[in-house]
């Protein structure tokens, strides 16, 4: 379907000016994990958006697969200082999932199978900036990389791209997530090198 390309095709820039400060380029895809890899078979998978008024919007795996998808090519930046350029994904834009969600909330708390959480402003999930991704480099997303589905928010450090994503809770007040409560920056913009809470 829609192909979303972030980058500089045609007038291609070299690797260096696509590399945020303090990052190095890697070709492989390091596995980072704060806990055991949860086993989430697609037939038991569910994704939900909970609004601040208590409304829930839910999708089964089959329902997610039936939604229009995009195939973004994006650069990803991990706070542990590796960056990887031109990674290719397939997933559903959050704009599609939020189509029928009525909310006045400004904050989102993303939660995952296995208990992980991460927070970000709702606007950073919208307008073509985020996806629920379920394929990587043409293949099913491997469990160690967050399969069956992970959040993909490539403009922020990759800890915001929650693996094994399960849902999003919309909040009127910001609520810091797993790494954000343990010294990491609340927003995490790699271009401003917002690694730690006091950066």
């Amino acid at each position, binding site marked *: 379907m829609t192909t979303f390309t972030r980058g500089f095709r045609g007038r291609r820039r070299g690797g260096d000016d696509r590399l945020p400060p303090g990052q190095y380029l890697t070709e492989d895809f390091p596995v*980072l994990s*704060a*806990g*055991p890899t949860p086993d989430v078979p697609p037939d038991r998978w569910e994704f939900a958006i909970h609004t601040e008024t208590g409304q829930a919007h839910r999708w089964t795996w089959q329902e997610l697969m039936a939604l229009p998808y995009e195939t973004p090519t994006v650069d990803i930046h991990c706070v542990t200082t590796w960056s990887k350029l031109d990674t290719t994904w397939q997933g559903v834009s959050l704009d599609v999932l939020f189509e029928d969600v009525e909310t006045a909330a400004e904050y989102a708390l993303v939660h995952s199978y296995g208990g992980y959480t991460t927070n970000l402003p709702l606007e950073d999930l919208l307008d073509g900036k985020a996806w629920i991704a379920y394929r990587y480099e043409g293949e099913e997303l491997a469990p160690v990389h967050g399969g069956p589905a992970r959040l993909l928010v490539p403009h922020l450090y990759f800890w915001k791209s929650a693996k094994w994503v399960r849902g999003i809770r919309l909040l009127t007040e910001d609520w810091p997530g797993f790494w954000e*409560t*343990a010294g*990491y920056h609340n927003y995490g913009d790699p271009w401003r090198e917002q690694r730690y809470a006091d950066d």
Partner: protein
Amino acid sequence: MSADYLDGNALAGPLAEIFATDVSAAVGRCASCGLTGPVASLRVYSRAPGLVARCPGCEEVVLRLVRSPDAAWLDLRGAVCLRIPLGGP
């Protein structure tokens, strides 16, 4: 799964920077399931932005440690209490 985590002795060095004593021998109780054991018996996930030590019984987080160039953040909320052995009189 075997290579996913290290044992709690991996915490000894990083915590030695903060505590004046070897905390890996300290005995704590998991706030989630109540399992009691030495810090050295925790499962430490180190391929992450910080160290995450989980209970070997219930896999809940017992301790987290994040180190930046000039500060450390230590979260012990998953541990009810640590009994830290100290030298007698």
